[in-house]
């Protein structure tokens, strides 16, 4: 993130220095404003979902739901940490249900639990699954198309679903493959050099 941040910042600043120096400060201030606005929006979403998830946790609903998916999830993510598995499974279930707002707090909790184990593999895999997330119904886009006078605003739903599924499966598979391949390749290299 540091590399990306620095590169983009420096490049944009240089370009703006030449083309529109007066616009530089307003642009950065707008960025800050966007952050504050997003933060408030996020707060509204998370206050509701984290509140509800705390109720579900205290009623032991979360733990029961997690049982169904816990075995395959534990295997896929290579973790035995029960808190992490519980949050992982809830994150994935919420994603599948299409409640992104509820999925994120569980995801972050899972990442924190995994941080204690130092399990970077699972953290990255979870991140990849969420950042290519499967969205069952793209509501915003359908609403936008309907308001623009489309005859069949829903006809993009199926291609969207296929496209998100492709990106999620491809991303996760690539990461698992690379991670499984790297140690082997490194070991081979070590063997050759000795």
């Amino acid at each position, binding site marked *: *993130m540091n590399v*990306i*941040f620095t590169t*983009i*910042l420096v*490049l*944009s600043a240089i*370009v703006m220095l030449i*083309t529109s120096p007066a616009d*530089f400060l307003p*642009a950065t201030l707008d*960025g*800050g404003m*966007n*952050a504050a606005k*997003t933060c408030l929006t*996020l*707060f509204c979403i*998370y*206050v509701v*979902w*984290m*509140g509800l998830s*705390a*109720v579900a*946790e*205290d*009623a032991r*609903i979360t733990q029961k739901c997690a049982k169904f998916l816990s075995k395959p999830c534990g295997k896929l993510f290579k973790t035995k940490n029960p808190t992490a598995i519980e949050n992982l499974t809830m994150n994935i279930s919420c994603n599948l*249900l*299409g409640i992104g707002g509820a999925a*994120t*707090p569980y*995801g*972050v909790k899972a990442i924190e639990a995994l*941080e204690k184990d130092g399990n970077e593999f699972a*953290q*990255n895999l979870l*991140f*990849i699954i969420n*950042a*290519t997330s499967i969205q*069952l119904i*793209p509501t*915003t*886009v359908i609403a*936008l*198309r309907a308001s*623009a006078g489309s005859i069949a605003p829903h006809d*993009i739903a*199926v*291609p*969207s679903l*296929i*496209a998100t599924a*492709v*990106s999620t499966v*491809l*991303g996760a598979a690539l*990461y698992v493959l690379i991670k499984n391949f790297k140690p082997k390749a490194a070991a081979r290299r070590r063997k050759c050099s000795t």
Partner: protein
Amino acid sequence: MQYVIPAIFVLVILIAAVKRVNVFSSFSRGAGEAVKFVFGLLPLLACTFIMCELFERSHLSDALSRLLAPAFSLLGVPSELSKLILIKPFSGSGSLAYLTQIIGEYGADSYISRCACVLYGSSETVFYISVVYFGKCKNKRRLLPIVIILFATFISTIVACLLCRIM
């Protein structure tokens, strides 16, 4: 679909009430966690959004998209969409504004705007999500997963454009 969320709320709160959980104090405990979580994110979000804003306002994104347009059209992606593809990982609101513009310009049922809609619906704002997920982690060097995500999203973009042509 609109029934799912209220149904979940009713179900969870009823079960909790039956089990004699103090719903009010549990809910407020969760809400308290949300406060800590969101305001811990604010400085990281500020950095990300300043970066995104500069990237767009400096017209660096325009230049890059013009540069990449021929490569995109070679892969079957209409060159009109190259800017949307570039902006989407950076900014949700920016790409939504651009999507609206595309729909207005080409008509809601044209091939280009259908492609654009599928693109928008099937990709995520990667940099923002990485901040939310890895904000509290010690190791912030996560180049490999970001690269993989951008690659996977790009492949799904090509698939999306193909699908729009068939379906």
